[in-house]
């Protein structure tokens, strides 16, 4: 083993927390290379010297100060909590969008909405009572409006308005 390779493996060799595969080879190299052996010994000595660095203790008020800061932390609002639940946020947004979309759909007159839907009879009465439709006979014979006049058996035939028929 060459000195360069020993340098690469020296950390693993010296660090007892790891198992160096080339441990035996490094030790064999040390038997013949004074420089590498010296370096390894100085690394060990260096680690011992580094232990001389004094340990700093936290100040007495450290925990109290931290507790104070934690208490001062603003309580997260409900929407702040929602930010951490993206699936829930997406579901709620989807539900809201669907609700808005459904509410804006055109309403079907035939059912579902009950009292708000006008009947065909009411439609007919509204047309019949318009001022311009003075002659009921003319109106009933008017081709464009013929489809509006109920002809089925289920629908009652409206009574002619005698108020306007004399004119």
């Amino acid at each position, binding site marked *: 083993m060459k000195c360069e390779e020993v340098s*690469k493996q020296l*950390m*693993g060799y010296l660090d007892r927390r790891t198992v160096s595969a080339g441990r035996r080879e490094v030790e064999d190299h040390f038997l013949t290379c004074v420089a590498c052996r010296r370096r390894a010994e100085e690394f060990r000595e*260096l680690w011992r010297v580094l232990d001389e660095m004094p340990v700093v203790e936290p100040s007495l008020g450290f925990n109290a100060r931290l507790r104070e800061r934690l208490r001062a932390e603003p309580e997260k609002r409900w929407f702040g909590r929602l930010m951490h639940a993206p699936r829930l946020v997406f579901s709620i947004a989807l539900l809201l969008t669907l609700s808005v979309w459904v509410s804006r759909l055109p309403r079907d007159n035939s059912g579902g909405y009950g009292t708000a839907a006008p009947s065909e009879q009411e439609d007919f009465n509204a047309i019949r009572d318009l001022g311009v439709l003075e002659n009921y006979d003319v109106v009933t014979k008017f081709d464009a409006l013929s489809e509006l006049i109920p002809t089925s058996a289920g629908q009652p035939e409206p009574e002619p308005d005698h108020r306007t028929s004399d004119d």
Partner: protein
Amino acid sequence: MARSDVQLMLDVKAGDEASFDLLLEKYRTPLINFLFRMVQDAGTAEDLAQEVFLRVYRARQRYSPSAKFTTWLFRIATNLALNSLRDNRYRKLEVSLDAPSDDEGAPPREVPAPEMRIDEHMVERGRSEFIRRSIDRLPEKQRLAVLLHKYEEMDYLEIAKILDCSESALKSLLFRAYETLRVELAPLVARPIEHPTGEGSES
């Protein structure tokens, strides 16, 4: 049986404040020392340590045990320390442009321990100051690697995760850092040159 750090953090997430206190007790001293050795100022180190714990507390709801708790904790601390050093460098630059200080680089004042003679204290202080300055002169990443490896006794994989590098790159980084320190601290660590006959001059 003692709960693991991950379990404690999960308990904090579930709303157990006492578990946060346990984590605080366990890690405040190592964290303050790590930060002190990075920023070289006890007050700043404490402030940064508080910030680390605050961030851990704030992030409790998002915590998921994908890595070791210490990896997460020291990664936050590392980022804060590096930011602080950069901010401080910027501030120092501003100050030096306006009013250069004669005290810059002076060692912090220490009160000698009462049981220690003044000459012993001077020697002791001189040694630790010498070591501190040598570590401080290392490039930031090398310094971080040494602090996490030597003082926090973390394994290579964990340090590599904190420093965001590969394990082999970390080993190389550490080797260069220790080699620099070996040269810098030669008066404290140098071994006597052995004679070719194998007889050392060490007494």
